[in-house]
């Protein structure tokens, strides 16, 4: 303000050519600016704002409240996650550090006994997931290829629709369907393979949808370039399209595997638990981590069984997380390349 006043005074002294700013400067000279001076058009004073319900204030409060609510919601959702992980880790970590957990099975170990390991269940879970993937991955990827590269018209719409239905089927319904076919109709005994079949039903839609999304991301120019070079369509799909989308497809497969590994309902109905090593998927009971948890939950009165239950739960979480992390790393590596 002081500089302006000085300039004004200087301007006032040389009044040769009056400017529009001069009068203002003169006024400033005479009376210092008033805080409450009303600008042209008028500014409502505090009382008037109050009468108008002070909209500025209310909007700011709402904005701040919304911000608090969003942060609070995020915090509230993280609480159960931390709580669950803490519960499982704190109860289960001791067993995982014991020497026999990764090498032994539970043979001849009763609910009240300590010792033994989860090797049988870990192997069983991995084997079952492997068999499921061997069946589900080719069908899933080829279906996605059909939907993106070949399919048009009613058949493609029908397939897309049934994939949606399949992705919504509860695991217990898939299990009961396999039971109705496998056991009731054909009279075959319950086994690990029957459970794997129901897991196939749950895994296929996950793979179809993730692969489809990845194939749609492949630029059409790549396909056109291949066709222009006279490459047959199937070679184009296999060597150009699928290869470009490879990392995304692998990620989808790993996330699908992570999802079915934790499924328990089909195992409950189709694959009874055993404490022994069992490498025959077609005959007899089959050990898996979820069923081991379920088994020890039944004897939760024993501290040893409870600890085994948490140990198995932690092992299962670690397996699932490992798959998730690998899947994400591959996805990131793949996306960095393109």
């Amino acid at each position: 303000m002081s500089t302006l006043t000085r300039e004004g005074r200087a301007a006032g002294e040389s009044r040769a050519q009056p400017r529009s700013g001069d009068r203002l400067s003169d006024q400033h000279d005479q009376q210092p600016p008033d805080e409450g001076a009303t600008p042209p058009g008028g500014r409502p004073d505090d009382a008037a704002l109050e009468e108008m319900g002070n909209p500025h204030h209310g909007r700011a409060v709402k904005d701040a409240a919304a911000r608090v609510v969003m942060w609070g919601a995020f915090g509230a959702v993280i609480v159960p996650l931390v709580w669950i992980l803490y519960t499982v880790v704190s109860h289960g970590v001791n067993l995982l550090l014991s020497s026999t957990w990764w090498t032994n099975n539970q043979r001849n170990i009763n609910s009240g006994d300590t010792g033994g390991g989860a090797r049988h269940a870990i192997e069983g879970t991995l084997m079952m997931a492997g068999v499921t993937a061997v069946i589900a991955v080719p069908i899933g990827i080829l279906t996605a290829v059909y939907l993106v590269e070949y399919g048009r018209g009613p058949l493609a719409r029908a397939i897309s629709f049934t994939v949606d239905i399949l992705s919504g089927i509860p695991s217990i319904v898939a299990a009961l369907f396999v039971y109705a076919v496998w056991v009731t109709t054909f009279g075959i005994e319950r086994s690990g393979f029957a459970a794997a079949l129901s897991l196939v039903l749950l895994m296929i839609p996950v793979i179809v949808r993730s692969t489809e999304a990845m194939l749609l991301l492949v630029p059409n120019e790549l396909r056109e370039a291949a066709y222009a070079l006279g490459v047959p369509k199937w070679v184009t799909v296999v060597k150009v399209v699928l290869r470009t989308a490879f990392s995304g497809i692998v990620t989808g497969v790993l996330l699908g595997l992570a999802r079915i590994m934790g499924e328990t309902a089909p195992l409950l109905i189709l694959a009874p638990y055993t404490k022994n090593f069992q490498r025959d998927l077609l005959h007899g009971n089959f050990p898996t981590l979820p069923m081991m948890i379920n088994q020890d939950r039944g004897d939760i009165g024993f501290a040893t069984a409870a600890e085994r239950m948490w140990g198995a739960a932690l092992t299962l979480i670690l397996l699932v997380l490992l798959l998730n992390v690998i899947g994400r790393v591959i996805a990131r590596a793949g996306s960095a390349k393109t």
Partner: protein
Amino acid sequence: MTGVPVVDEKPEPKGNAPLGGDNASTARLGDRLFGGAATASGVIVIAMVTLIATFLIVQAVPALLDNQENFLTSRAWNPGGDQPGFGILEFLWTTVVAGAIAMLIAVPFGVAVALFLTQYAPVWMRGPAAALVDLLAAVPSIVYGLWGLITFAPFFRPIQGWIESTFGWFPLLAQTGITGGTILFIAVVLSIMVVPIVTALSREIFAQTPLAHKEGALALGATHWEMIRTTVLPFGRPGVISASMLALGRALGETIAVTFLVSSLPNGAAWTWSLFNGGETFASKIANNAAEFSNPSRTGAYIAAALVLFVLTFVVNSIARIVIERRKAFSE
């Protein structure tokens, strides 16, 4: 989603035929084999779903014909024997009410977290925070069951006791004497399980809100929240609805966690509207009685229950798809 690459849908200039590879050479042996395999896989998927529906119906019908009770309105459950009589009313009530309450909790939270991840969180935080929420989805449901049963239930019991003693005059919150897995408790655990599903899908669609809409709102003087309310939320509404429906489908069909938590009612227990009542859902009833599948008529009753669950989730998922398709039709 008709399976046609988006690029193919773009009209070619000067009315030429699309350049897509759909009419590329398909006469070679390799082409016929590969194309045939792709088509066959698709047909296998159709066959699977058809078989599921067929087998469930075929095996449910004999049991339903023998049924002495009304399948839809009876609360009795005595499958097998000479005079089988069973109805699903109780499971239907528990399943639907628990699913609905889970949605009442999970949808606001899921949407708020999605807004947080896309609109509020500092940019450096968005990736890790989203990974944390996804982690919640990666936890197997059996672990939720254990946690709910052993760790969370003791915390919930006093809350339930307080609600019962304060609002017990309200029929939905009446005291029942059941302290373990009440419908409300199951709904709370289910809501925790499905929040990540709501968040994941809502987040995706919120992130797609056109920048011009958001900047326009801000330029008109909207606060951050007003910008979200007038641009992000309306743009994302179809996505939120379909995400909620998918989450509801998951909640209705959730098996093992609910099986761990439910307190089953004795046959012939008095009917109550209370949310603090026990009661099995479809999925838990089937899972709890897996050992009972001894003869066809007994199994048939459970398969009939599974059929109803199948139809229920089918309807819910179809609504989700219709909403998504409608949005696609408008946005393209």
